C-alpha cells in the first residue's frame, strides 16, 4: 500500500495547526480587500477625472497581473523603503490589495444597480454627499453584493498557499517542509488538498444558501 496511515497521523496535527495561519491570512486579507475595494469603487465614480482614471488604471493593472509577482514585489521592495514587515503581514497586504481590485468591481456593480431615483431623492431632501453615500446608496448597494463577496473570500482562501513563496508557514509550506524532511510528500500534500476541499465546499454551500435566502426575501 502506498498510503502510510502512521505517517498521516504524525503529520496531521502540524498541518491543522498551520491551517490557523491560512485562516488568519484569509480573514485579515479579506477585511483589507473589503475596505480598500470600496475605496477604489467610489474613486472610480468620482467627479474628479484624474482620480477616476487613475483608480480605473490601477484596478485594471493589478487584476491582470499575477499575485505571485505582486507578492515578491512587496516582499523585496518594502524593506528598501525602511518598512520591515513580517512575511505574513506582507502576504496579507498583497492578498488584500490584489483582491480589492476584484471587490471594487463587485461594489461598482452594486452601486450602479441602485436606482437613479435614490440619488435624486437624496438630493431633493438636501442630504450632503457624504450622507447620500453612507445613509442611502451604500446600504442598498452592498447587501446584494454579499454572495459575490463571499465567492471572492473563497477564491482568496484558495490563493493563500502562494504565501509559501515568501516563507509564510501556512498549510502548503508546512506540508512541503514536512514532506522534504521525510521524503514523503504524498500524505502531507494530500491532507492539505483535502482540507482545502472540505472548507471551500462548506463555504460555497453557505454562500449559495445565503444567495437563495436573499433572493426569497427580495
Amino acid at each position: 500500500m502506498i498510503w502510510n496511515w502512521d505517517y498521516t497521523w504524525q503529520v496531521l496535527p502540524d498541518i491543522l495547526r498551520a491551517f490557523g495561519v491560512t485562516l488568519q491570512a484569509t480573514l485579515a486579507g479579506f477585511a483589507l480587500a473589503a475596505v480598500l475595494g470600496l475605496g477604489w469603487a467610489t474613486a472610480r465614480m468620482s467627479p474628479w477625472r484624474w482620480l477616476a482614471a487613475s483608480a480605473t488604471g490601477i484596478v485594471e493593472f493589478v487584476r491582470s497581473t499575477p499575485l505571485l509577482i505582486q507578492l515578491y514585489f512587496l516582499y523585496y521592495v518594502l524593506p528598501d523603503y525602511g518598512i520591515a514587515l513580517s512575511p505574513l503581514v506582507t502576504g496579507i497586504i498583497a492578498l488584500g490589495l490584489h483582491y480589492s481590485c476584484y471587490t471594487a468591481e463587485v461594489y461598482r456593480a452594486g452601486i450602479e444597480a441602485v436606482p437613479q431615483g435614490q440619488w435624486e431623492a437624496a438630493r431633493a431632501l438636501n442630504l450632503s454627499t457624504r450622507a447620500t453615500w453612507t445613509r442611502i446608496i451604500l446600504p442598498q448597494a452592498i447587501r446584494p453584493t454579499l454572495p459575490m463577496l463571499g465567492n471572492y473570500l473563497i477564491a482568496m482562501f484558495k490563493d493563500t498557499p502562494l504565501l509559501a513563496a515568501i516563507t509564510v508557514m501556512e498549510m502548503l509550506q508546512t506540508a512541503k517542509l514536512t514532506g522534504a524532511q521525510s521524503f514523503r510528500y504524498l500524505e502531507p500534500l494530500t491532507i492539505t488538498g483535502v482540507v482545502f476541499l472540505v472548507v471551500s465546499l462548506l463555504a460555497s454551500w453557505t454562500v449559495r444558501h445565503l444567495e437563495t435566502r436573499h433572493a426569497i426575501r427580495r
Partner: protein
Amino acid sequence: MIEFLQTHLPALVGGLRVTLQLTVGGALLALLLATVAGLARRSPSRWLRWPANVYVEAFRGTSALVQLFWFYFALPFFGLSMPALVTGVLVLGLNSGAYGAEVVRSAIANVPRGQWEAGRALNLGERQILFRVILPQALPMMLPPAGNLLIELLKNTALVSLITLSELTFTAQVQRAATLDTVPLFALTLLIYFLVAQVLAVGMRSVEARIARRRGRA
C-alpha cells in the same frame, strides 16, 4: 535604461516564451476538458455525470498551487513523474477546465427550454438539437466568461515558477538575484504580463464581435 534592458530583456523574453507555451497548452487542454465535463454534467447517465461532478468540484474546491505541488511532488509516489512543463500544462488545463465546465454548463442551461422542445417538435435527434440548435446559441454566452478565465490562466502560469520551471516569473527571480535591480525588474515583468493580458482581452473581444456578427447574419 538601455543598459538595463540589454541586461534583462533577452532573458525575460526567453521566460515569456515558456509562459506563452504554458498559457496556450493549458488553454487548449482546458477547452477540451470544459466542453467534455460541461456536457457530461448535463448528461442523463449518472456514469457520465458523476465523474464530471467529482472532477469539477475537486479542482474548483482546492487551490491551484496545491494541485500543482500534488502533481509534481506526490504523484511520483504512484510511479508517475513528469517534467515540470508537462505538469504545468496539465494542472493549468485541469484547473481552468473545471471552471470552464461551469461556464459551458450554465450557458447551455440558459438557452430557453422552448428551443429543445422546438427541436423535438421538428423531429431532430437529441444530438442534432444539441449541436445545431443549442450550442450555437450558448456559445456567445460562454465567450465573455471564457475570456476572463483565459486571463486567470495566464496569471496562474506564474505559479509554475514554484516547481522550478523557468518561465517569466522564475526568470525575473533569477535576474533579480544576480543584479538586485529589484524595483525596475519586477515593474518590467508586471508590465509584460499586463501587456499579454491586454492582447488576450482584445483578441477575445474580437472573437466575440465576429461571432455576434455572424449570428446576426444567419
